């Protein structure tokens, strides 16, 4: 039997996935499940989606040969510049796709969750573009520590609602967005920001992010004369940028898939978000996957310096890639990420997002050969993290 890394007809990736949702959400999720593939396949959808990616998002994003990093690590390192997307991260690939789906489902309002605020900004942006009402739930603690993105969302016309339940961070914002959807099932579409949630969300989001690896293929063909790298590296919180960067290489045995998880203060420090190291199979936010939890099955609040990786689970696709051994997972600490952020900034003139910095921190461990090709997905830019960089790197002293 050939192992598949894509979703099956039951909504599973191997042992992970499914749609573990209360009956109140069943009609919405079922409507989406039964229609998303047909909607995405419509020529008018494809035309509108690709036109917006090109003229609004600014795609294709460059694949940049990072010469000085390549020299330092004695290999060939390419940076996939998702940080150059409109709004500053890959998140908008998904929100463009989902709002076009929402329009075709006849929805007039959008609800979303956000952690660092990048997905919230990307959602508020497409809602402004399409003239749709936008409500974004954000943990009360995240609202405090990501003030610039809160201001951006409000400037774009979105209503930002603090999630005050539980630990007041991303997982609670996700709970609140789901509750909002339960309370407004008819006119509202929920734009989930990662490859998490009940089927079909993980697959739908992966398909919209797959444009990243589609472009890597033809860009490598142009630059290197072959359409696959030896390694693709991406950071994984929920895992949407990794899903997009891996997507067209899932069945390419010559490409190793490398996922960087946030190990916080150290995998075993008690302050970490490295789900594949610390998680167990369980159900969180509507799908069966790996999640960090107590023996009693209560979700553990994770920790990472990066708000975008500060999530106690990973998408079911990644749980399957981990369990099957198809992808290799590295835990990267806050300190290692900070060092990598400085390195990329000073060798290449590119200030990466803290999330991306985790992916940039694994070159040493990779030991890639001089003739090999390494592609790193630069999922976002570091502007939003300047306060953290200033503080941790003492840039103003």
């Amino acid at each position, binding site marked *: 039997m050939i192992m598949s890394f894509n979703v099956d007809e*039951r909504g599973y990736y191997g042992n992970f996935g*499914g*749609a*573990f*949702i*209360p*009956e*109140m959400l*069943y*009609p919405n999720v079922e409507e989406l499940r039964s229609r998303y593939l047909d909607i995405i396949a419509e020529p008018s959808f494809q035309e509108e989606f690709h036109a917006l990616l090109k003229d609004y998002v600014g795609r294709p994003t460059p694949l940049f040969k990072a010469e000085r990093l390549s020299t330092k690590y004695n290999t060939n390192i390419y940076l996939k510049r998702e940080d150059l997307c409109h709004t500053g991260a890959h998140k908008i690939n998904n929100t463009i796709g989902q709002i076009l789906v929402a329009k075709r489902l006849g929805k007039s309002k959008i609800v979303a969750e956000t952690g660092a605020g990048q997905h919230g900004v990307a959602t508020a942006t497409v809602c402004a573009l399409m003239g749709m009402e936008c409500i974004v739930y954000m943990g009360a603690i995240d609202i405090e520590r990501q003030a610039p993105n809160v201001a951006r969302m409000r400037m774009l016309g979105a209503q930002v609602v603090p999630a005050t*339940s*539980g630990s007041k961070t991303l*997982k*609670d914002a996700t*709970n609140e967005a*789901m*509750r909002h959807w*339960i*309370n*407004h*099932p*008819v006119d509202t579409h929920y734009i989930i920001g990662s490859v998490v949630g009940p089927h079909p969300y993980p697959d739908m989001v992966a398909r919209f992010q797959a444009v990243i690896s589609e472009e890597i293929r033809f860009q490598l063909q142009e630059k290197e004369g072959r359409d696959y790298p030896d390694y693709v590296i991406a950071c994984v919180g929920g895992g949407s940028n990794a899903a997009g960067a891996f997507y067209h290489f899932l069945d390419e045995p010559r490409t190793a898939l490398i996922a960087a998880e946030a190990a916080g203060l150290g995998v075993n420090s008690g302050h970490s978000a490295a789900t594949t190291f610390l998680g*167990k*199979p*369980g*159900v*969180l*936010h*509507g799908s069966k996957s790996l*999640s960090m*939890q107590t*023996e*009693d*099955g*209560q*979700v553990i609040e994770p920790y990472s310096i990066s708000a975008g990786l500060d999530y106690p689970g990973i998408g079911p696709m990644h749980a399957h890639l981990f369990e099957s051994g198809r992808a290799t997972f590295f835990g990267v600490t806050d300190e290692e990420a900070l060092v990598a952020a400085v390195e990329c900034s000073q060798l290449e003139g590119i200030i990466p997002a803290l999330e991306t910095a985790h992916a940039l921190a694994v070159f040493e461990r990779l030991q890639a050969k001089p003739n090999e090709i390494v592609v790193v997905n630069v999922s976002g830019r570091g502007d939003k993290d300047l306060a953290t960089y200033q503080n941790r790197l003492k840039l103003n002293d």
Partner: protein
Amino acid sequence: MTKMNRISALFASATEPILNVYTTAGFPRLEDTMTVLNALQAGGVDIIEVGMPYSDPVADGETIQLSNQAALEQGMSVAHLFEQLKDMRKSITVPVLLMGYINPVLQYGVEAFCAKCAEVGVDGLILPDLPMVEYEASYREIFEKYGLFNIRLITPQTNDERIRHIDSVSKGFIYMVSSASTTGAKTGISSDQELYFERIAAMNLQNPRLIGFGISDHESFVKASKNASGAIIGSAFVKMIAQAKDLSAEIVAFVQLIKGKN
């Protein structure tokens, strides 16, 4: 030989509207669980639904969320709940349901969990995020082996075909969610909701129905019971016990007030 499940026996013999009250285990204080159960029964409740606290209860509104969080902070767990309920059947004769989310059940082990339920005398389970397709594929056999009824929800958005299917899979009763909402989000019963109750009543389902969400007092209990076998109260009860000074006496009074028996 299996004895008749207490839920079936209740519905077969009930002459008045059935009142099911939800309470969060380990709340208001960790060791209050059995005190609450005994007082509910003394007040005249017909079914007791014991909520297993969970860190991320997405189908629940603020009141029940906060009670879950408080219970967890006090040290509540599934294992501890079974410990609290181990002698339950020495005093409790009414049907008892456990309500909760699937993840803690998975971590306990589905079969071990069901065996423990049967051992302490639990009659049925309400697991809102256990979807029907998963239940039928992987859980039904185990639930039935231990004589546990799986109580399933329907909402105003559930279409007739799915209601028929849920009815065919259900045992005991069907939990009719009165409106598209989380628990405790709305109170009272509107005329639209009454139309929905009448529509479902006219479907002649094989299972009886209890109506939940938005039931908080005698008036809404009576209204809901007109088109169903009874109703379920959760948030209003949890809100009351959160502030109760004399827990047992206030629970008895609450139940009698709802049933109109004071």
